[in-house]
Every structure is written in structure tokens, then in C-alpha cells.
């Protein structure tokens, strides 16, 4: 049998009778070998999104969702994964909002779940339905912080770390990777939770700017992406802009992902759509409201929504056209700059999407 001693209680509760499916996420030796065998040369790694998805996403891979649900998240890359019909992926992320619609087309089959939803827009009824229909299997339950610590442990170069999160909760009973152990330095009882280092197979990270080698600059919340880039076997950087290396060296002081993690670099302006991108564009808020309040409620609606927005667009440029084209671009930039305090305040009132009132606009 396998090399990992997973929690039996969790395997039973989750009805996992093929625990080998859990291995890749925590297989450090394999991840290290993959990292050692990566081409180190500082070369021009630019390719198209289509090429990147075709080459670096294999059916069954563990995919890390990045950014924060719909903030600087690589959603256009997810859409391309769906268009290319990639299958049986395991999705992990904190949050992992975007796995929900990817289950519908069979791209995502397994979930390492932390949070599926879109905050106040309501419960994601699509996820409930897919789960009950057996179209997605939960392989492990996590808190946001648990996934953050697992990825951080990988970045720190540690087999795992001891956490005080999730102790005593039912999450531990539904996560085969977690073990409650005694803090070895304490004399008295001090239960602590061992969280293993997490190694996803493939991670797309959307950034504000990157050079052609893959040095990537993030402005705004990095969330778990610096750790995710260090941990993941394969890393694809998608960027709003490709800048000269000297611009990264001299001007981009802040959060940088070093080039040697990156397997490919994709110039992908508006690659976070329909999410927001700090410094570049605000959310098309009605898109998410319609997804959660109307499209997620039954199979027919979600199917139409995916047909319209994913398969009905070939790239982010067609997506922008559907959102309202140049008018949307101008409003989205004004709003994000204002929200960040970088121009005079604009009026943030907007016509919300409700089931009884579809304003038909996205700003």
C-alpha cells in the first residue's frame, strides 16, 4: 500500500477507497524531483494561453486556484482549461470559489474544499447540486488558514507545520491529511494539528507585470500565491503587461515571484476577468450576482451561462465585448482606481442584478 498514513476516520467519512488519489498533493519527493529537473535557463518563456494550457495542464492534475476568489484570480485561464476539455482535475485553493462551474463541464472532478461561494451574493446552489449528483467528490475539507499553512510550509522547505487551527472541529474528521499530535516540547497535554506541506501540480498566477523570463510582480493582496508558486510542480505566469527585466529590477518594489519557478509566461491583459485586478479594473459586479442568484440555481441555467460566457467567447477580448467593450473598460478602470484611492472618488452606486431586474450592464 501507499507511502502515506492517511487518517482512517477521514477516509471512511469521505468514502475514499482509493487513497492513492490523495498522494500527489503531499508527495514532496516527487515535487522536489520535478523542481530539480526544471530548465533553469533564463530564457524567453512567452507562449500563448492556449499553448500553456495544452502543454502544462494534464487530466487529473491538482490545480491551485490563486488570488482571492475573484480578486487577481486567473479566471481566463480556468475558462481556457474548460474550453480545451481538460478532465478530472483536483482543485485546491483558499478560497476555491471557481471550482464550482468547472465541475459542470467535468473539468474539475475532485475538491480539496475550503470555501465555495461569493460572499454576500448568496450560497452557491450549483455546488450543492453537483455534490449531490456525485459530479464532484470532496477529497479533503480545510479552513482557509489550513491551506495557507500547508502551502507556506512547502515554501519554507518544511515537511509540514504544527497548527492551532481546525482542532476539535469536524473539518479534521473530513481531511485525511491532518493529524492531531502532542506538542513535543510541552510537558502537559497540548494538542496540535500537523498540516503537511502541500505541492499542487499546476498553478496559474495572474499578475500585474512580468518580464519574459517569469519574474512576476504582484500589487495588492498576494494571498497564497508566493507560497503557491514555490510549491507547485508547474507554474504559469499570466500578466497584464510584459515589462523589461530592468523595470522589475528597478521599479517594481513589492511582491515578486522569481523567474525560476515559472515554466511559461503569457501576456494576458484582462486575464483576471470576470474578477477584479488591482490597479487595472473593478469587478463586473452584475456578472457574479447573475451567476449566484440566477445561473447557479439549476442545471439549465448554469449550462446556458457557461455556454454564453466560456464557450461563447474564444478569449478575454470577446469577453470584454460582451461586458460592454470600451465603455466597460473605462468604467472598470475608474472604479478600481477610485476604490484604491488613486483618483477622485466616483459614485459606486450601480444597478444590481436581481432575478426580477437584469440591468443588462456590467459596471
Amino acid at each position, binding site marked *: 500500500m501507499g507511502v502515506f498514513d492517511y487518517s482512517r476516520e477521514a477516509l471512511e467519512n469521505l468514502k475514499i477507497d482509493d487513497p492513492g488519489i490523495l498522494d500527489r498533493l503531499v508527495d514532496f519527493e516527487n515535487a522536489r524531483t520535478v523542481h530539480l529537473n526544471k530548465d533553469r535557463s533564463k530564457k524567453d518563456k512567452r507562449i500563448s494561453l492556449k499553448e500553456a494550457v495544452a502543454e502544462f495542464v494534464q487530466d487529473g492534475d491538482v490545480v491551485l486556484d490563486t488570488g482571492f476568489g475573484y480578486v487577481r484570480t486567473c479566471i481566463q485561464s480556468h475558462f481556457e482549461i474548460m474550453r480545451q476539455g481538460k478532465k478530472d482535475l483536483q482543485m485546491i485553493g483558499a478560497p476555491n470559489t471557481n471550482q464550482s462551474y468547472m465541475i459542470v463541464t467535468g473539468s474539475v472532478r475532485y475538491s480539496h474544499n475550503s*470555501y465555495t461561494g461569493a460572499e454576500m451574493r448568496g450560497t452557491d446552489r450549483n455546488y450543492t447540486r453537483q455534490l449531490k449528483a456525485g459530479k464532484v467528490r470532496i477529497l479533503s475539507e480545510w479552513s482557509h488558514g489550513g491551506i495557507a*499553512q500547508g502551502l507556506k510550509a512547502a515554501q519554507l522547505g518544511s515537511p509540514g507545520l504544527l497548527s492551532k487551527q481546525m*482542532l476539535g472541529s469536524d473539518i479534521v474528521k473530513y481531511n485525511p491529511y491532518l493529524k492531531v499530535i502532542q506538542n513535543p516540547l510541552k510537558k502537559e497535554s497540548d*494538542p496540535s494539528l500537523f498540516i503537511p506541506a502541500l505541492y499542487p501540480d499546476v498553478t496559474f498566477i495572474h499578475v500585474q507585470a512580468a518580464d519574459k523570463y517569469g519574474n512576476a510582480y504582484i500589487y495588492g493582496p*498576494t494571498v497564497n500565491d508566493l*507560497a503557491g508558486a514555490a510549491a507547485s510542480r508547474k507554474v504559469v505566469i499570466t500578466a497584464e503587461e510584459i515589462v523589461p527585466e530592468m523595470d522589475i529590477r528597478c521599479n517594481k518594489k513589492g511582491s515578486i515571484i522569481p523567474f525560476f519557478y515559472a515554466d511559461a509566461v503569457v501576456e494576458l491583459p484582462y486575464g483576471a476577468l470576470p474578477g477584479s485586478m488591482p490597479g487595472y479594473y473593478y469587478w463586473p459586479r452584475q456578472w457574479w450576482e447573475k451567476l449566484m442568484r440566477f445561473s447557479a440555481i439549476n442545471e439549465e441555467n448554469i449550462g446556458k451561462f457557461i455556454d454564453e460566457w466560456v464557450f461563447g467567447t474564444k478569449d478575454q477580448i470577446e469577453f470584454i465585448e460582451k461586458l460592454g467593450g470600451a465603455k466597460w473598460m473605462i468604467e472598470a478602470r475608474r472604479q478600481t482606481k477610485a476604490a484604491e*484611492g488613486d483618483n477622485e472618488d466616483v459614485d459606486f452606486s450601480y444597478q444590481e442584478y436581481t432575478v426580477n431586474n437584469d440591468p443588462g450592464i456590467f459596471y
Partner: protein
Amino acid sequence: MKNDAPANPLEILAYIISAQIKDHTIVYVGTGLPMVAGILARKTHAPNITMVYESGGQDPIQGGMPWSVGGPFTWRKSPVVMEMAYSFGQCYNGYVDIAFLGFAQVDMYGNVNTHMIGDDFHQPKARLTGSGGNNDLTSLTENMVLVGLQTPEKFPEKVDFITSVGHLRGGNTRKKAGLPGNGPVAVISQCGVFDFEPETKRMRVKTLHPGMTLDIAQMCTGFELLKPEGEIPLTPMPTPDIIEILRREVDPRGVFTSLPSA
């Protein structure tokens, strides 16, 4: 145009939450009403609080009402935006005083469920979001305040899934599970404010909102509420000045504080 309509229940809730916040503290803010309350506290009795958010935003300068905890208003000109792991680490290390979160269910010991309704994990009546940061904050933060509507279904004797440990099975079971902090110190609903009896750690009525009776609060609860000794005080209500600040400066569009019209 001045809106001098009486405060609605959501506005009252926002005020009661804000009243839990002491000045000069670090406040971890979840999505929805807690965001409104934090900003209201800062504009009224607690101008010197530092607000922190799960996406990593720390101490943003004042802006509008965030559409998301990851939105720009949560890290507007922040001196630092922390990675997620560090932002929860801040709670464990004692640099957060109080946190506010919602729930789908909360039980008599303050355990929280945001995972599922039903008794079968694989065929739930409803699958909910999962933990998000709820478990992390409830596990680690010194003082946790839970906010939500009170019905017998949402206040059951036992939650359907323990997403976040409050006082687990009462007494010192939270500490024995290895968790730091005081755990939940208050639950705020449309009925009243509740605390936890120090020995048993069972939920206890602290104050009732004007117009509420103990009987009504009990009818909205799926377990027996403990009562304090003596007469139950009334929850202090917001003054018209505070309601005006809430409507004009904090949530002018009524995103979180207007009642659904349909």
C-alpha cells in the same frame, strides 16, 4: 434628503455589533454586517481602531463599503498587505483583540456551522460555503463575536457540522482540544445579546432588545437558554445621531442595512 425613519432591525444589529468594539483595539472584520459595524465604530466611539481583513488588508484609509473582503477598500493605501498565512498568524500571536463573523448555525456552546445542513455529508439538504476563514478566526482570536438571525433551526442544540469550535462541549473542553483564546464571548441576534455562562459555557441571555421577551427569544432557540440572575437588562439602542451617521456615511446605499423589499 434626511431620512429620519426609525432604525430597522439590520441597522440596530450593526449598532449593537459596533458597541462591542473598544477604542484602541485591533479588529478582524468579516464580510457583511461586521464590516458596517467596524466602520460605524470608527466613525463614532472608537476612532482609533485598526481594522484587519482576511485577504491581508491592514489598516486601510477610509473609503467606501467593500463589495468583498478582498476588495480595494480593505487594503486602500495599507502600509502592508499581509499574506493569508500571516494574517491568521496575527490572531494566534495576540495581535487581534476581537473578531466578528456570521454563521449558518450556532449551538448552545457557540460551535459554528458554515458547512452543510442535514445529517449526511454526501447528501446534505444544503451544502454551504465551507469554512473559509471562519474556523481560523474562531480557533485563534482572543474574543469572538458571532452575528446572525435567530431561529430554532439556526440555533440548534447541536450543529450539523462543527466548522469552528466555540466552547465544544462546554466547561474547559475548548482548552483541552488545544485551542487558545476565550472563544465566542457574545452572540448577537435580532432578539438580544447572549454570552456564555463561565462554568458550563452554555449560551445565556445577556440583554434583550426593546420589545423582545424571554419567551420570544426562547421560541427562536432550539435549546434551553440560560437566564442571568435578576432582571434581564434591555440592549442599549442607537441614538438618532448614530443612525444618521450609519445612513449617510457608512452604508449610504443600504447594501447591508436595508431590509430586502421582496
